């Protein structure tokens, strides 16, 4: 690890095009050690493309990617041996038993801890003698999760690990995330559509849309600064000029403003402009996500 920086991942101005479509557009991301870093965004927003750059599966076309201070394309062995990775659809050799699969995985990782691997399997109530083919989808995900942790990776990368899983398997994924940061101060990168889970476990949120970073902030700020304001005000409302307001809907003489701002400052400003504040309500991550997503689908100006 480069001693001068405390970032596990350091991505600068990364741009990636597939044919003519920009999958990533000038993305800068730093993941500090010890954090749970959440990535959210609609399907096709660029989450998996970003993760593939971190794993060294894609070479940076523009900009730079550094993981543990190294280029993952130039140093795949050094980088990947310190990462634990679980994707939505893990590609298992299905004919193997769990025990054979764990042995197979152990060969890739110098730090593989057999005792810890056995312990993880036991915690996940998995019988190592069973063939992977015989397992349910949830059980297969648990095998993948055990395999992603048994070398105690410095960075656990989970790419939509909970998609389509039952609540028990999802719980175990959350437990693995918390265990990773609680016990050894290691880091987690979690990409997910399950915003309640992201809200619960993440320190930092990166919100992607169309390959661009729409928002990157601490989860605390994301939850404290997203508000819906209901107000009444005669005449037009030039909401685009208001600091932090990213969407507005006119509704029967009332306005619904969606903002990411210091709520006291913003309502103070609105009152100075003659608005009557009827209600302010904090948005959950889910609501903030929806409000921000619809922002792209509404016309710029609403009469």
């Amino acid at each position: 690890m480069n001693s001068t920086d405390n970032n596990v991942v350091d991505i600068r101005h990364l741009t990636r095009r597939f044919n003519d479509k920009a999958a990533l557009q000038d993305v800068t991301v730093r993941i500090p050690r010890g954090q749970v870093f959440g990535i959210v965004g609609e399907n096709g927003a660029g989450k998996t493309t970003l993760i593939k750059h971190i794993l060294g599966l894609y070479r940076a076309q523009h900009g730079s990617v550094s993981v543990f201070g190294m280029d993952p394309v130039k140093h795949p062995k050094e980088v990947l041996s310190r990462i634990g990775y679980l994707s939505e659809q893990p590609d298992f050799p299905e004919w193997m038993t769990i025990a054979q699969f764990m042995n197979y995985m152990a060969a890739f990782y110098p730090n593989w801890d057999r005792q810890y691997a056995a312990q993880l399997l036991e915690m996940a109530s998995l019988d190592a003698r069973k063939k992977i083919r015989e397992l349910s989808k949830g059980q297969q995900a648990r095998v993948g999760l055990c395999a992603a942790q048994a070398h105690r990776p410095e960075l656990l990368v989970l790419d939509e690990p909970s998609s389509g899983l039952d609540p028990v398997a999802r719980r175990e994924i959350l437990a693995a995330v918390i265990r990773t940061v609680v016990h050894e101060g290691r880091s987690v990168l979690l990409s997910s559509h399950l915003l309640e889970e992201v809200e619960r476990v993440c320190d930092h949120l990166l919100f992607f849309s169309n390959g661009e970073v729409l928002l990157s902030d601490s989860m605390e700020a994301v939850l404290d600064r997203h508000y819906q304001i209901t107000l009444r005000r005669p005449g037009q409302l030039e909401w685009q000029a208001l600091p932090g307001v990213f969407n507005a809907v006119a509704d029967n003489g009332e306005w619904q403003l969606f903002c990411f701002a210091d709520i006291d400052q913003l309502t103070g400003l609105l009152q100075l402009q003659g608005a009557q504040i009827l209600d302010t309500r904090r948005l959950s991550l889910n609501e903030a996500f929806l409000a921000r997503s619809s922002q792209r689908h509404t016309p710029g100006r609403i009469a």
Partner: protein
Amino acid sequence: MNLHLTQHSGVPPYLQIISQIKQLIASGRLNVDQELLPIRVLAEKLLINPNTVARAYRELETAGWLYTKRGAGTFVAAGTTAFSAETCRKQIRERVCALLVEAAHMNISVAELIKLIREMGNDLGKGDKES
């Protein structure tokens, strides 16, 4: 220390922890000088980011509900909260206001509400430590 986080409630997890710990203290299920679960233990139990638990503890400490002993842990503080009387009144007023609006919607009279509050207050006074 039995806490539950509900999803889809719109209430951020740290605020849920805060209100539930206050509830446990107010109802006598957590006693003065009793030690709270360490941050990491509660985080693993609730499957929640440890910084969220730390934030809840910190805010409860600032508000006078808890105190910390260096290297020893977090404990329930004695007696009153550290808010000024004015702040306390303001906060209670806001809640009563919301309650009155909701009650009016549900056709529950103020008299009925007062009766309910008195009953629940008596129950709290008994301190249901067994439950």
